[in-house]
């Protein structure tokens, strides 16, 4: 997606009921874009939940990857999307603990939600992305390098990174593929994953900062970007150097 030139674009954000995805969806919608937001929950009143009329919500539970992909596809057809300018595949879950004690269903769920569903959604939306030379943005994690107490989570994010690497080459000239790896961010994700961080959370990036950094990376068509917790600091310095934030 080029600069926000005022033209309304079609945007998909998965996992938009909380955290970074929620902020991304609201931020794009508040600038007049048409946003399709997804999540695992059923919302009784999406307009009230997001507070903006141009966000449409559809339930697409990624624990059932093929069903989620079909739900997204059907929703885009209902909305009359003839193309997709930007898809941010952000939904994700984690489990933390000793990998030898990780239950089979936790392994399966993380792989389904974090890897299989993004793969299947990408395949399903491909024609719409090609129609606009759109951008496919995958949300990874700095944990993709490997992490002892987030072993399956780290594996799924490394899988996404590898998927992005090869698909980017395949899709060259048809759609742009990028991966963004947030560092620790102050959302509810860790609590949902069973990790109580206490004061350490204070060191984390704010979700707002993460959302802004992601949008910047999207604007710049970066093929790969890591958002570290000192992003804010670095951004300040790089602003002095590059004249932009």
């Amino acid at each position, binding site marked *: 997606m080029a600069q926000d030139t005022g033209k309304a674009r079609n945007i998909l954000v998965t996992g938009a009921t909380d955290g970074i995805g929620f902020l991304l969806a609201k931020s794009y919608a508040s600038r007049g874009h048409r946003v399709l937001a997804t999540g695992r929950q059923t919302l009784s009143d999406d307009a009230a939940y997001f507070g903006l009329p141009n966000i449409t919500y559809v339930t697409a539970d990624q624990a059932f990857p093929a069903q989620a992909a079909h739900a997204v596809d059907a929703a885009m057809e209902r909305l009359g999307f003839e193309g997709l300018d930007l898809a941010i595949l952000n939904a994700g879950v984690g489990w933390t603990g000793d*990998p030898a004690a990780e239950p089979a269903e936790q392994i399966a769920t993380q792989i389904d939600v974090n890897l299989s569903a993004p793969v299947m959604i990408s395949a399903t939306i491909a024609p719409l992305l090609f129609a606009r030379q759109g951008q496919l943005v995958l949300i990874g994690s700095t944990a993709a390098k490997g992490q002892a107490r987030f072993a399956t989570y780290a*594996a799924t994010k*490394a*899988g996404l990174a590898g*998927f992005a690497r*090869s*698909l980017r080459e395949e899709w060259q000239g048809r759609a742009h593929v990028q991966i963004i790896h947030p560092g620790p961010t102050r959302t509810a994700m860790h609590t949902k994953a069973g990790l109580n961080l206490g004061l350490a959370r204070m060191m984390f990036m704010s979700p707002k900062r993460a959302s802004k950094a992601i949008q910047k990376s999207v604007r710049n068509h970066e093929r790969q970007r890591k958002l570290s917790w000192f992003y804010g600091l670095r951004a300040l310095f790089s602003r002095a150097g590059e004249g932009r934030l």
Partner: protein
Amino acid sequence: MKALITGAANGLGRALLEQLLDDGHEVIAVDIMTEDLDRLAVQSRGACRVVMADMANVTSIERCLRSLREDKLDLVILNAGISATGKFEEIPLGAYERLIHINLTAPLTMAAGLVGQGLMQRKGRIVFVSSLSHVVGYPGASVYAATKDAIAIYARSIAKPFRKSGVGVTTVFPGPIRTEHAQRHAPKGAKENKRMEPKELARMILKAAKRGKKELYPGSAAGMARLAGYLFPNFMTRMMRRIIFDKLDGNTY
């Protein structure tokens, strides 16, 4: 020594199985097609035990783990794997589901189950089979590549916590192997003699496991690809696209 191999009926798994039996070890051979293995088990006079399990199915994997209740394993090689090659968006979703289950969910569930349920011997070792695509990318098989990257990072993540149970971890990054799998997925005209013999690779893997190596890039070509992928990651993936993706005709899954 008692060993377990998944995907033991064909290709690399079969070569590993035969090598281990030749060396006088006890082997549990896991696969979905077991007719051929049953014959081999009879010939082995008790050294080889066959367990039928579908690695695409978590219930089947859990049943397989339960059947190992009485065992203490010294060596486990999580070898079973499939591929899907072609244009990413043209391959049906069901093929991806199966690919990810067999290549990723299965080895993770097996590894966690084996160590968590105390089925590994102290000083035992688990071997994961990733791919050379981990260092160079693989346009034309982006989901296969994703599962192999995920395996490599899982193996790296669990190395330390598994050491507490005395279990070591080895990851293998093989390039093309001369098996039916490679035959099916390679572009037309690809040279067969550049592929590694399963027997030779099996020997290298068993040696690396014995020595407690963390990683194995088997052969000099794999070593060079690793270096090139490290130094020029994007260039190498582009090369892979030219060598493989641009030459694929049709989708295979």
